C-alpha cells in the first residue's frame, strides 16, 4: 500500500493523541485513582501504536507498546500510580513526541530509547509474579469481554416503546426487518459507508434502532458489521440489492422480525440484564464516570468531525487572492464614481458589502486558539518543578482565546521563557515558602483574553516578586543604568530593567532560565510583533508579566504619509499624535534638532534624510508635518511632507531577497496597486 499519502494525517493525528496522552497524564497525576483517565490514555496510546505499526515506524510502535503495557497494568490495578511511574510515562511521551517530530521533519522516526524501555519494563515487572499470573487471565478476560461486546453488538434489544412501534407497524402491513450489514475488511471509510447505508434505509423506511448506536457508528467504533432495525414497505430483496450497491459492503442479511423472535430476544435480554445488574452494582461509580467521559469525547469528536484540515499555505494563497480583489474593488469603485451609472453603482456597492463579509471570514479563518501554544506548558511546568524540587500548580485560563496564526507562531518561545522565569526565579522553594507563611505549593497562572483590538496574555505567580534594590544594584554594576538616572526611576521602570539585555538576577545560574539572555529576547520578540510587555510586582507576593499583542499581524492600522513622491506607512500603534510645527519651533541641541512638545524635549527625525528621498526642489517650507511616535517611554518626531490619512492595510513581507532593511519593517499594497513601505519606528529610536 502506498503510505506516503497518509503520512500527513498520521503526523497530525499522532500529535493529537500524544497531546491527549500528556493532558490526561497530568489529570491522572491529580486524581491517581481515576481509572477512567487511565483508560483514556490507554486508548490514545493504543491507537497510536496501531497507526505507527501500520505506517512501519517500529521504534514508535515498540515504545508505545511498552508504555501501553504499563498503562494496562495500572488499568487492571496491578500497579499503583505514583510520581515515579508517571515520570517514566511522561518521559516516554516526550520520546514519542520527538520521534513524531522527527518523522514530520522527514526522518525515519528512529531513536534510541532503551533506557526508557528498561524503566518501563522494570515498572511492569515490579509486579512480576502477579503479572505473570494475571496476564493469562486478563487476556482471557479481554477476549471474553470483546466477544461479549461482539455478541451483543449483533443482537438488537428493543425497549417497550420500540417493541410497540414494531408490533403496530407489522399489524398495519409494514415489514419490520433486522438488517445485518458486513463491510469488507479493507474498508477505509467505514463511517462514510454507514452513512450511505443509512441514507438508503431512511429513503425506504424508518430506522427504529441500530447496534452499535448511531453515534458509535459515526465514530467507527465497530468492527465490520452492524445491525439495523427498519420498518418499511419495501421488500427484503429489493432492500438487499439497494444496500449492496454501496461499495465495500460485503454481506447483507435481512430477517423479518417476527413476534417469535421478539419474545426470544426479549428473554435473552432479560437474562443478560440480570447478569449485568450484579456486575454493575459493583461498578456503578466507575461506569458513570466512564459514561461521562465517553459523552465528553463524543461531543469533542462531533465538533471535530465538522472541520476539515486546510494547509496554512492555501489560506495564505486565499488571503493573497483576496487582497488582490480588495485592490481591484478600489479601482472598480473609482471607475464607478467616474462613470456614474446607477446600475453599475448598485452592483459595485453590493459587491463591496459581500467582500466586507468575505474579508471577515478570511481573516477569522486564520485565527487559531492560543491553546495550541498553551497546551505544552502544563507538562513543561511539571517537569521543571520536579527538577527544581518545587511544588507548583499551573492554572491556564482563556486557552480558547483566538489569535492570528502569525502571532501564534511567534509567541511560543517568549512564553516559554517567561514561564521558565516564573518557575525558576519567581516561585520560591517549599521551605522558604513555608517560612514566609505561604502555602508550600506555588501558583502560576497563565491567562489570555481579548480586549479591544488586542489580546492580553498574563503570567502571574505568587512567588517572591522582584527585589527592586537588588535589581537596581545589579543594573548599575552592569552599566545598564547610571546611579543618577537610577534615582529618578519609577518602580515599574525598575521592574522592567530585568528585560534589559545582559541582565540576570538569579544568584545561581541554572540551566532552566538561562543567563539573562532570555528575557531581553522576549522583549524584542514581543515588540517586533507590535506588542509590548509590562511587569507588575510586589515583593514577597508575586509578579504579573503582562503582554499586549495585536489581534492580527496581517492587517494593521497605519497612518499614510507622503515624502516627495513616495508614500510610507507608520503603524498607528506607535503614533501618539500628529502636529504641524513652524521652522522657528525647531531648536538645536548637540547637533540634534529637537522640538518642545508639551513640555518635553523631543528629537526630530527627518524621514527624507533617513530614507535618502530624492528631492526635486529644495523645499524650504516654513511648516513641517510631524508625526510624534513613541517607543517605550521615549518619544521622537518624524518629519514628513504631508499626511494622507489613516487606513487599514495588509502587511506583506519584502521577501527573502531583501532582508534587514534599515527602519523598514515590511510593505503593503495600496488601493492604487502601488507598494508602500512600512516604517519601523522601533529601529529609528535606539
Amino acid at each position: 500500500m502506498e503510505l506516503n499519502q497518509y503520512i500527513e494525517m498520521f503526523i497530525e493525528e499522532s500529535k493529537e493523541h500524544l497531546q491527549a496522552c500528556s493532558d490526561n497524564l497530568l489529570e491522572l497525576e491529580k486524581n491517581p485513582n481515576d481509572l477512567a483517565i487511565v483508560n483514556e490514555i490507554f486508548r490514545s496510546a493504543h491507537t497510536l501504536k496501531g497507526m505507527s505499526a501500520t505506517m512501519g515506524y517500529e521504534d514508535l510502535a515498540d515504545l508505545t507498546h511498552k508504555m501501553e503495557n504499563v498503562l494496562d497494568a495500572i488499568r487492571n490495578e496491578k500497579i499503583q500510580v505514583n510520581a515515579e511511574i508517571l515520570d517514566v510515562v511522561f518521559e516516554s511521551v516526550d520520546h514519542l513526541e520527538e520521534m513524531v517530530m522527527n518523522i514530520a521533519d522527514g526522518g525515519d522516526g528512529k531513536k534510541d530509547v532503551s533506557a526508557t524501555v528498561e524503566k518501563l519494563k522494570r515498572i511492569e515487572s515490579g509486579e512480576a509474579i502477579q503479572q505473570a499470573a494475571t496476564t493469562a487471565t486478563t487476556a482471557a478476560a479481554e477476549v471474553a469481554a470483546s466477544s461479549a461486546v461482539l455478541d451483543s453488538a449483533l443482537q438488537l434489544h428493543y425497549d417497550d416503546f420500540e417493541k410497540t412501534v414494531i408490533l403496530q407497524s407489522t399489524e398495519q402491513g409494514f415489514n419490520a426487518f433486522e438488517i445485518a450489514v458486513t463491510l469488507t475488511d479493507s474498508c477505509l471509510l467505514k463511517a462514510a459507508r454507514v452513512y450511505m447505508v443509512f441514507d438508503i434505509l431512511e429513503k425506504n423506511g424508518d430506522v427504529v434502532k441500530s447496534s452499535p448506536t448511531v453515534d458509535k457508528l459515526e465514530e467507527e467504533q465497530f468492527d465490520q458489521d452492524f445491525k439495523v432495525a427498519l420498518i418499511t414497505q419495501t421488500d427484503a430483496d429489493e432492500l438487499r440489492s439497494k444496500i449492496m450497491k454501496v461499495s465495500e459492503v460485503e454481506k447483507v442479511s435481512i430477517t423479518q422480525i417476527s413476534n417469535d423472535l421478539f419474545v426470544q430476544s426479549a428473554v435473552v435480554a432479560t437474562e443478560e440484564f440480570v447478569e449485568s445488574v450484579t456486575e454493575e452494582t459493583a461498578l456503578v461509580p466507575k461506569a458513570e464516570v466512564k459514561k461521562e467521559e465517553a459523552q465528553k469525547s463524543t461531543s469533542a469528536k462531533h465538533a471535530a468531525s465538522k472541520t476539515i484540515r486546510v494547509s496554512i499555505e492555501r489560506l495564505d494563497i486565499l488571503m493573497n487572492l483576496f487582497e488582490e480583489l480588495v485592490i481591484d474593488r478600489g479601482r472598480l469603485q473609482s471607475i464607478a464614481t467616474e462613470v456614474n451609472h446607477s446600475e453599475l453603482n448598485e452592483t459595485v456597492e453590493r459587491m463591496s458589502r459581500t467582500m466586507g463579509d468575505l474579508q471577515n471570514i478570511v481573516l477569522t479563518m486564520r485565527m487559531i486558539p492560543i491553546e495550541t501554544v498553551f497546551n505544552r506548558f502544563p507538562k513543561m511546568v511539571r517537569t521543571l518543578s520536579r527538577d527544581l524540587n518545587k511544588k507548583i500548580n499551573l492554572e491556564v485560563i482563556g486557552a480558547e482565546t483566538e489569535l492570528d496564526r502569525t502571532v501564534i507562531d511567534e509567541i511560543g518561545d517568549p512564553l516559554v521563557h517567561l514561564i521558565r522565569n516564573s518557575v525558576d526565579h519567581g516561585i520560591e522553594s517549599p521551605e522558604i515558602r513555608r517560612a514566609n507563611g505561604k502555602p508550600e505549593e506555588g501558583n502560576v497562572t497563565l491567562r489570555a483574553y481579548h480586549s479591544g483590538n488586542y489580546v492580553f496574555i498574563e503570567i502571574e505567580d505568587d512567588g517572591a516578586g522582584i527585589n527592586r534594590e537588588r535589581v537596581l544594584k545589579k543594573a548599575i554594576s552592569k552599566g545598564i543604568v547610571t546611579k543618577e538616572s537610577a534615582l529618578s526611576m519609577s518602580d515599574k521602570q525598575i521592574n522592567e530593567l530585568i528585560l534589559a539585555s545582559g541582565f540576570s538576577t538569579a544568584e545561581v545560574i541554572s540551566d532552566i532560565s538561562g543567563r539573562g539572555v532570555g528575557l531581553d529576547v522576549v522583549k524584542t520578540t514581543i515588540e517586533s510583533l507590535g506588542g509590548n510587555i509590562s511587569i507588575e510586582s510586589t515583593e514577597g507576593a508575586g509578579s504579573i508579566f503582562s503582554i499586549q499583542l495585536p489581534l492580527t499581524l496581517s492587517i494593521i492600522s497605519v497612518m499614510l504619509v507622503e515624502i516627495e513622491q513616495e508614500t510610507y506607512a507608520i503603524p498607528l500603534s506607535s503614533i501618539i499624535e500628529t502636529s504641524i510645527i513652524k521652522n522657528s519651533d525647531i531648536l538645536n541641541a548637540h547637533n540634534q534638532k529637537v522640538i518642545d512638545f508639551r513640555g518635553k524635549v523631543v528629537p526630530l527625525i527627518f524621514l527624507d534624510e533617513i530614507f535618502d528621498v530624492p528631492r526635486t526642489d529644495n523645499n524650504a517650507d516654513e511648516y513641517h508635518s510631524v508625526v510624534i511616535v513613541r517607543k517605550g517611554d521615549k518619544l521622537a518626531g518624524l518629519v514628513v511632507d504631508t499626511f494622507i490619512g489613516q487606513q487599514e492595510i495588509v502587511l506583506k513581507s519584502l521577501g527573502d531577497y531583501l532582508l534587514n532593511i534599515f527602519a523598514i519593517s515590511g510593505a503593503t499594497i495600496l488601493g492604487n496597486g502601488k507598494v508602500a513601505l512600512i516604517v519601523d519606528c522601533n529601529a529609528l529610536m535606539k
Partner: protein
Amino acid sequence: MTAVDQEYLKVIVFQLADKEYAIPVANVQGIEKLMHITRVPKTREFIKGVINLRGVVTPIIDLRERFGIPVSNHEETTRIIIITLEEMEVGFIVDSANDVIDIPADAIEAQPEVVGSNEEEFISGVSKLENRLLILLHLDKVLNP
C-alpha cells in the same frame, strides 16, 4: 535526468545592450511589462525597489546596473522577468525578452576566457546557435552579492 533533458535545455532569451542572455525556463515565473516600482531606501544601487506582483511584494534588480552596463532609459520593450530561485522571487529589468528556445545540451560551452566585461562572474556558460551567441546566467551569483 532523462534522455530528453540531457539533449535540450529550454531557456528564455533576453537582451541587454547588444548581447543576448538566457535563463532556464524552470527558473522563470513570468514576464511582466514595466510597472510602478517603489524605491526601497538603503539598499544596493542595482536594487530598484519592489513591485506589487499580483499581491506579492517582489524585489526588482536592474540587470544593466548589476552587470555594470551603462543604464539606459526604459522603453516600450523593457520587461521585468520574474525568476524564482530557492523560494526567492526576484524580478530582473531587461531591455527586452525575445524568445523561448531549446538549446541542445552539447551546444553549451564553458565561457571563453576573454569575454572581458563585468558580468563575467555571473556567466555559467555560452551557447552558439546558428548566428546567435547566448550567454547563460548563473542565477545564484546574480542574486548573491
